[in-house]
């Protein structure tokens, strides 16, 4: 049976939800083009260089995919938590703790081959989950705001990682860890490490869990109305805690994959920097849809790797790319908010009635 028609009003609203991010990306690119033109360069050539540099051939594509990979994890981490009404801003800390645990397990225990690989990934998952469990417990027992606690724990994770690479597994006293031995690096497939495949599969799995299982159903219900969820017999506190744990585990796995998959295969200053908040931005632009998050993460990857090529070809700083990325976020969030404005709603409704009238007369 075909899905029954929903009201015209709702159909329009849903179409707008999809359109907003697309229009935002276009607008952001236009703004970027204006800035490039103001700098006296040719924006068309710049954007061509960007595409060339990110998707031009297989090696560039795989670089882009590897760049997007950790963002998929932090993006999905944010998506899962927000679906349950948990504002986990600690994706970065959870990713870093995951990577630290992976490094400690592999460098500490030694070992090679598939068992060591699996153990490394598992260590990342567990550490990420535990790092998110902390603010989760603080929230459900003491009511502490997770936005604050997760951000603060990001710094704790950052300095913990510094301790690891400076003091515990330091490479001959330099501020970086020893590189992981070749036997415990993620295998490559067509130039990109298999972490990319893990990320894509995870995106599909998260979508499935959220939209097609009873557990995901309850997670969504709690996110949208915790009071009604409680009255209707859902274990709200347990579900919230699980949302923390799963979201942290996703980020932690991302940390393990990033460490084991990407050169230089070691922890050093700057590892994971910015991934957390990029993940939050991705989740918002993707409107909390896990599959859309995959695409948005890819877009972010294209902007990053392509930006470097744009810099070298037309000579504009990569900061342009940061501006474009920022613009996408601003336009999307502003667009989402303005859809809810009553005046705009009325306008959309009047368009709709005109088009239905047109259909009727046709």
């Amino acid at each position: 049976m075909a899905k029954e028609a929903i009201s015209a009003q709702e159909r329009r609203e849903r179409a707008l939800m999809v359109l907003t991010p697309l229009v935002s990306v276009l607008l952001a690119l236009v703004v970027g083009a204006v800035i490039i033109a103001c700098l006296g360069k040719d924006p068309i050539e710049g954007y061509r260089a960007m595409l060339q540099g990110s998707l031009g051939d297989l090696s560039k594509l795989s670089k882009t995919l590897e760049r997007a990979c950790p963002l998929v994890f932090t993006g999905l981490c944010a998506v899962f938590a927000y679906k349950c009404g948990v504002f986990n801003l600690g994706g970065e800390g959870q990713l870093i703790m995951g990577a630290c645990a992976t490094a400690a397990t592999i460098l500490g225990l030694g070992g090679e081959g598939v068992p060591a690989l699996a153990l490394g990934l598992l260590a990342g998952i567990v550490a990420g989950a535990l790092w998110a469990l902390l603010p989760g417990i603080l929230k459900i027992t003491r009511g502490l705001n997770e936005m604050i606690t997760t951000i603060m724990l990001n710094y704790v994770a950052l300095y913990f990682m510094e301790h690891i690479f400076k003091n515990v597994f330091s490479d001959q006293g330099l501020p970086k860890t020893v590189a992981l031995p070749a036997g415990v690096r993620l295998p490559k497939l067509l130039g990109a490490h298999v972490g990319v495949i893990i990320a894509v599969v995870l995106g599909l799995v998260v979508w499935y869990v959220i939209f097609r299982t009873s557990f995901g159903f309850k997670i969504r219900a709690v996110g949208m109305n915790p009071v009604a969820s409680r009255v209707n017999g859902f274990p709200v506190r347990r579900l919230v805690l699980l949302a923390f744990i799963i979201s942290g585990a996703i980020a932690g796995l991302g940390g393990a994959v990033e460490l084991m998959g990407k050169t230089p295969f070691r922890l050093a200053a700057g590892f994971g920097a910015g991934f957390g908040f990029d993940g939050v931005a991705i989740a918002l632009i993707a409107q909390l849809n896990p599959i859309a998050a995959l695409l948005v993460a890819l877009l972010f990857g294209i902007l990053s790797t392509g930006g470097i090529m744009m810099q070298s070809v037309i000579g504009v700083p990569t900061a342009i790319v940061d501006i474009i990325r920022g613009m996408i976020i601003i336009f999307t969030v502003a667009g989402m908010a303005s859809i809810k404005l009553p005046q705009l709603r009325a306008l959309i409704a009047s368009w709709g009635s005109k088009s239905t009238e047109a259909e009727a007369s046709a």
Partner: protein
Amino acid sequence: MEGVSKRFGSFYANRNVTLSVEEGEVHTLLGENGAGKSTLMNILVGLYQPTEGRILIRGEEVDISSPGVAVAHGIGMVHQHFMLIENMTGLENIILGDRRHRTPLLQEAADRATVEELMERYGLEIDLDARVSDMSIGMQQRVEIMKVLFRGADLLVLDEPTAVLTDLEVQGLFDIMRSLTGEGKSIIFISHKMREVMRISDRVTVLRRGETVATVPVAGATEQELADLMIGQKFTESTYRKVEDAHEPALTLCEVSWHPEVKHGGLKEVSLAINRGEILGVAGIDGNGQAALAELVTGLVRPESGELVGPDGAQIALFSPEAFIDAGLGNIPEDRNKMGLVGDMTVAENLVLKQTRSERFSRGHGAWLKMNAIERHANRLREENDIRCTSVNQLARSLSGGNQQKVILARELEGHPSLLVAVYPTRGLDIGATEFIHDQIVAQRDAGCAVLLISADFDEVLKLSDRIVVLFEGQIMGTYPGANPPIKEISLAMAGK
């Protein structure tokens, strides 16, 4: 206020209401919840515009287009929930937003003198330098009153000011009210606590279902007369058959207490049995423990003392909505949007809310939801319960109130509960939806379900109940038969006698 009406959509919150307040009097606005008191006052202070009618101040017609205009005309309101900034001092809260000095700098010294003079004159004791968060509730209220006086109000609206106060603080408030009226100020006092109304008011205007019933001087009236006016005495013979021989109890409360020190919200040693095949109606003026009772019998809170006994005669140990639902509870909660539905989920999703792990709607205990089965189920319930929506994939929040309530009812009755708790099940609904919901509740009773009906609508309680208990200040005042109920006695009990 003359002939004032306010319409929301097709619903009249106020219809042709007339209210006149004399200088220097305490005029009480009396009515049940939903009688239209708040709407009327919101019109007076400029938050709503009347659909019809006019407002006259000292004989001159005025157009109160905004709260600012109301202040300029000397009308000030003290809301039930205080609107103070906790981290500021009393004085700062009082002078906040006042523009009399027309200077960018605060004139704190001058304002302090003004406020102190007002304090002196009306006997309002306020610690001006204490932060609001450190003040007692009574003093916070005095800050609110002072705010209004400072802005030069001659007519003060006090919205249920005694709801949050202790007896001693109520006495203090009444003293202040007396000194205010002594100086020629007028007060509109909103309350449904009969005793206080009798003590403080000069005249009373009774509202019922948005209309003025009567304006009477308190001198010469009795509590009984006022209660009769408020709840209405037209008893129409119920169209439903009344059951007199109920079956065994589905749930028994034995001397259950929950925050008994709170007069308007707690429960004090309540004992009652909810029997199968019977509708037990709880009558009472809102705010006498109904909410606590509903939370107790649905597992949301645990009693502080006393016990609940299940159908098997065993004491209930585990208080959680889950456990109660598993034991066969159907619940039509007080606030359908907040407690009953997840508004941002679809109608279909709301209809299977509790059953997503069942074999019917999923494979492997919830590992794979059968989307088609969920949609078919929703369409069937939509058909059976006449839920009007364009599609079951519509978001629940986009339905009208009546249809939302039908969604909840369909979901709760579908599992054939052994105990149905219905709290204000028809509040705000039109006649058609109300009739439908009443029919469904009675049908459940006939099928052997135990029904606990809690409602502030006295007519509804009379119409449906096979047995009636009255709650007053957290205690049960009496139990009455549902067939040929002794209305006089019941309304006396509701007033606390």
